[in-house]
């Protein structure tokens, strides 16, 4: 028995990893440590990886969609990261190296077909992103966040590994297809299988920020650079979700009776707790952190009905919109942090009036996350995730989801109102920003435009994702 390396599967990841090394090296030998030295190679590498992905994959492929989301998200982060003050606080070469390494891990994670690759890719996704969180120099909050993230991460990894070892004991293999086969024929007690499956899956939910693994998210997001938080909330979640979905759908279908109700419960708890936590936030980043927990619940919910009609497509479609909207929001906040130093509600008051090119896209992204027209695409994707949940017979979960939409609107709307409210005192006029900030702004606007186009024409998204 032999597991050949499918280079078409790992091609993009290899390119990205190579890009990471090149970025590091170019930066090391480039005289002035600016974004050009590493950012440009990173961008090119991501582009090339995208081309490779297009070349080797069918557009309707599940892995393709997830990889595409990861690549596009990372590209967005790379470009928008220009807003960061690379000159002073952030070493650009290392930043891009870590970012791209992590992205390579993300790509591998969704391409993995065995648990060994999965766990190693998981670590490749995690460890560089932990370093990214702690990278902000001279900031004790950043290092503390990195510590939080790190410890939560290693504990989850240990739990997952324990689960994997038991799963190995149950099935005798670490290959997804083999496990599927073995689980179908195993004569071990169900409870043993259950423990193994739960430990394995549950540890992976850590990245997704599902309850009870959400505890690290608020601290980490508010402690790290805004775009890193954006990366964690978007790309790393996308990879984790993809990996979980593929694992559940290809390796563990025979044990579905064990994990389906569990996933449903976790999803319901996650969205509820995330929304409740967001209610009292007075800082936009804190709010988005909690909201990303809640959104994880929405992402996870259709996984409880993976075998219902469109059960596998729905989370990916939701994910795509979630990633785009979340990145737009985080990029806008990154710009604001750069210009105003903080993202409390007071600082954001009247943004849509003083700086409509920032405030309105941010508002639209929030509306998308809330799932409210005119951001029709947000509503449509909410509909999309509800469908398999109901088809799978979890009507109660659908009701919980629906009520959480209401709960979510409560705080999204509060932030939106802050944005369009009349600012007290002098309106803030941003001085003509440097090119790097303009790039980030451009990303915000482009991303929001994408959301607007998709709102007008949801078919574009729904027909083209698997």
């Amino acid at each position, binding site marked *: 028995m032999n597991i050949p390396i499918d280079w078409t599967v790992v091609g993009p990841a290899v390119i990205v990893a190579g890009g990471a090394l090149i970025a590091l090296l170019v930066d090391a030998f480039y005289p002035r440590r600016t974004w050009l030295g590493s950012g440009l190679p990173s961008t090119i590498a991501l582009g090339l990886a995208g081309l490779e992905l297009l070349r080797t994959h069918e557009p309707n492929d599940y892995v393709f969609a997830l990889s595409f989301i990861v690549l596009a998200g990372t590209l967005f982060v790379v470009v928008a990261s220009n807003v960061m003050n690379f000159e002073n606080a952030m070493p650009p070469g290392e930043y891009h190296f870590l970012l791209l390494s992590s992205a390579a891990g993300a790509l591998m994670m969704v391409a993995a077909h065995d648990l*060994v690759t999965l*766990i190693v890719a998981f*670590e490749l996704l995690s*460890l560089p992103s932990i370093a990214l969180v702690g990278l902000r120099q001279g900031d004790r909050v950043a290092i*503390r966040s990195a*510590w939080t993230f790190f410890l939560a991460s290693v504990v989850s990894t240990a739990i997952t590994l324990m689960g994997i*070892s038991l799963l190995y004991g149950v099935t005798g*293999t670490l290959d997804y297809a083999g496990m599927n086969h073995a689980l179908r024929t195993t004569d071990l007690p169900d409870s043993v299988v259950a423990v193994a499956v739960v430990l394995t899956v549950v540890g992976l939910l850590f990245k997704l920020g599902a309850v009870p693994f959400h505890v690290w998210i608020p601290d980490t997001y508010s402690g790290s650079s805004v775009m890193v938080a954006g990366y964690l909330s978007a790309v790393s979640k996308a990879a984790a979700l993809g990996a979980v979905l593929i694992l559940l759908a290809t390796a563990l279908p025979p044990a579905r009776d064990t994990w389906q109700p569990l996933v449903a419960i976790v999803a319901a708890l996650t969205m509820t707790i995330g929304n409740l936590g967001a209610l009292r936030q007075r800082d936009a980043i804190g709010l988005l952190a909690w909201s990303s927990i809640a959104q994880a619940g929405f992402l996870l919910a259709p996984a409880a009905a993976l075998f219902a009609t469109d059960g596998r497509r729905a989370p990916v479609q939701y994910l795509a919109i979630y990633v785009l909207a979340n990145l737009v929001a985080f990029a806008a906040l990154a710009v604001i942090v750069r210009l105003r130093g903080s993202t409390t509600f007071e600082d954001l008051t009247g943004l849509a009036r003083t700086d409509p090119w920032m405030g309105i896209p941010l508002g639209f992204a929030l509306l998308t996350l809330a799932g409210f027209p005119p951001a029709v695409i947000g509503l449509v994707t909410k509909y999309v995730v509800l469908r398999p949940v109901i088809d799978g017979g979890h009507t109660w979960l659908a009701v919980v989801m629906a009520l959480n939409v209401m709960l979510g609107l409560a705080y999204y709307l509060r932030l939106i109102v802050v944005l369009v409210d009349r600012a007290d005192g002098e309106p803030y006029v941003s001085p003509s920003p440097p090119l790097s900030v303009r790039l980030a702004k451009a990303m915000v606007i482009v991303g929001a435009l994408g959301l607007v186009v998709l709102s007008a024409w949801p078919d574009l998204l729904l027909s083209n994702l698997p």
Partner: protein
Amino acid sequence: MPLLYPLVLAAALFGIGLYGVLARRNAVLMLLGVELMLNAANLNLVAFDAWFGDKMHSGQVLTLFTIALAAAEIGLGLAIILTLFRALRTVDVDQVGVDR
């Protein structure tokens, strides 16, 4: 040899490691607890590998990988802890979170 021996040992080590993570005040020792948990998983893997006589040696390979990953984690973790110590002058988990 009964398969249960290594498995039960692993369970015990996992529990002890978990206790260490959750109870030790010193951040470095919390890390050591994690190492114990990882070792427990490794024991399981090797035991099952030996039990199956796995031709692909999946268990042992994953064990090797885990050991490497643990090393990487320890490296990164210690770097974080040292930086933390320099920033806050403490590695006491109860103190790290407190704003001063």
